[in-house]
């Protein structure tokens, strides 16, 4: 009986001493974390995509809390997250950029674009582009080996019929794919821009026709069938000015190669 009591007394005493030591350590040695960091981390999208320029959401939250990062740095979170972070930080936030979405500027799928040879190597766009300039007939188009899809944190990119296609309902607009593409076919565009040019080739029309039936030939039909200044042809390739509203139905209908299309169609 004594043995049990002794053991209980000894363990109880040790518990008290250790508890006291821990309490003192917490009081005097504790690392003080800004309570806002935790709140901001919770408010963020949690994608850990790195589009803010920091190594994950927690690092960005810490940077916001100590004032070195802007409150609207979370790309996937958009305006909603930016306002929430601004509220935590007690600063004003209004507006912000329109949410962006990744867009693959290529419509040259396996039905419309030629391949110069059968590539039988590493399934990576940079590796394929290093072999005789890439197997795709078009030197500017999507190679379709999925380097963008491999880096997408939201799994929003799939390879369909030989080219990359973005699922806009999943895309968080982080831009990882833009950096991964060796041919700069992917760009970030405003989510509201529905009519876009599905081509990246600056070659003259005659050359484009030889390797792709959907490539922009620089014919300017879109320029003639839209309000002035909305569509420009530069370097044999049409560019839509996404900063102005564009009801492109007339221009889309007139595009002879159907490279100007609505993403909803």
């Amino acid at each position, binding site marked *: 009986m004594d043995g049990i009591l002794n053991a209980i007394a000894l363990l109880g005493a040790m518990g008290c001493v250790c508890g006291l030591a821990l309490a003192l350590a917490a009081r005097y040695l504790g690392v003080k974390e800004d309570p806002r960091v935790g709140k901001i981390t919770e408010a963020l999208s949690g994608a850990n995509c790195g589009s803010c320029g920091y190594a994950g959401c927690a690092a960005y939250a810490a940077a916001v809390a100590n004032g070195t990062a802007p409150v609207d740095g979370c790309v996937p979170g958009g305006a909603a997250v930016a306002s929430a972070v601004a509220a935590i930080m007690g600063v004003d936030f209004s507006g912000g950029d329109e949410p962006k979405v990744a867009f693959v500027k290529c419509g040259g799928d396996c039905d419309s674009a030629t391949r*110069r040879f059968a590539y*039988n*190597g*590493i399934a990576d766009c*940079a590796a394929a582009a*290093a072999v*005789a*300039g890439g197997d795709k007939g078009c030197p500017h188009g999507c190679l379709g080996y999925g380097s963008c899809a491999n880096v997408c944190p939201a799994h929003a990119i799939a390879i369909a019929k030989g080219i990359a296609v973005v699922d806009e309902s999943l895309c968080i607009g982080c831009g990882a794919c833009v950096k991964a593409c060796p041919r700069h076919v992917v760009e970030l565009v405003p989510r509201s821009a529905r009519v876009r040019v599905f081509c990246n080739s600056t070659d003259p029309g005659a050359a484009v026709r030889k390797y792709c039936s959907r490539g922009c030939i620089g014919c300017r039909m879109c320029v003639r069938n839209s309000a002035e200044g909305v569509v420009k042809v530069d370097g044999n390739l049409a560019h839509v000015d996404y900063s102005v509203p564009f009801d492109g139905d007339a221009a889309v209908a007139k595009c002879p190669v159907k490279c100007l299309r609505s993403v909803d169609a």
Partner: protein
Amino acid sequence: MKFLDKIFRFAGGIAPDGHKGDTSGIPLRRLPRPQTISVSMSQHIGAPSVPCVKVGDRVRRYQRIGDAAGPISSAVHTPFSGVVKSIAPSSTASTRVATAVTIAVDPDDADTDASLSPIDWRSASHDEIVARVRDAGIVGAGGAGFPTAVKLSPPPGRSIDTVIVNGAECEPYLNGDNRLMIERAADIWTGAQIIRRAVGASRIVVGIEDNKPEAIKAMAGAIGAGDGEIAVLPHSYPQGSEKHIIHSVTGRTVQTGHLPADVGCLVENVWTVVSITRAVVQGVPSVIRTLTIGGDAIASPANFAAPIGAMVPDIIAAAGGFGVQPAKAVCGGPMMGIAMPDLQVPITKTCSGLLFFTAASVHEFGSGPCIGCGRCIGACPMGLMPAEISQAVEANDLALAEKLKVMNCFECGSCAYVCPAHRPLVQHNRRAKAIIGARLRARK
């Protein structure tokens, strides 16, 4: 002449089927005079040459049409008289894109040619010989195309005692070097002595694989009572690699980051040696390339002495065209050659072969994960671990790839040849080398 007693075997390597029989007995032929040639300004490693003719210019045979653009560059000459039709970027058979001078070839070379004056090599100085080799635009014919004049001038403090003439020709199918040794053995022996004089070496060793008995006999006959030696090497791929032939002949090892001159050796391919003889003794610049055209799609495989800039379709036609439509075309040998996406391209000074294979003999495969069998490690003649390197590259861990000495890989393809999972090991190494190489250059 004496045969070398001791041959040092190198570790690793493979023994692919040589396929030499198709063309080993066929003499070198001149290519029929083409109507058009397209001479690339990038026939070598280093800065592409700068064209020194204009569109519309008349050029004479052997005239210089491209100037060297730096110390590691080379002059380019025209093999025929004609008129310059265009100067524009285009691809060569080895898929290198550079400015090319297209020439409409005259029906004959009636006007006097622009050859250089012959030199008496027995009394010529080092500088005279090196200057001639440079002026003649001679580059290493083994494959890399390193300017030979640079090789003949070893860095200060290095002296060369052994000149090794590389007649190993270990790539399957190819017989250009073999035929050259059989038919032009005397020129090879002369050229080797010119090189020996230029670099002040004492020994000449001609390395030939033991599957070329005729070439060994011819070279032995040409050397005769001379003081050259012949090393009969076991046929093993990649015996013809510079570092490996040095090891086989002398037992010396060229360490990482070092040159053959650091171990007192100079290695020259047999066609380079013949080009030096032609340039010095006859004053003819480097405008011809010996090559084998073969593979099971070619109607009658052959060996040609073809002018540089000759278009691939002209060479195919001279070999009787295709017996069967090819599924794959390769410039060079099947191990280290480059697949050609387009046949409307010209050959260069480094094109040792044109091979065309039918669908039946082309093995297209998907690659699988590494099964850890280690065969690539046994096959690598550089003592690397290709399996580990390729997995590091796949994981984008280039620091690890560099630590595993990927930069020592010379892309012989032995690892990929033996890999049961058909992993693209050479492509992984090439990617890593390109990225790491660019970083190293940026750091300098």
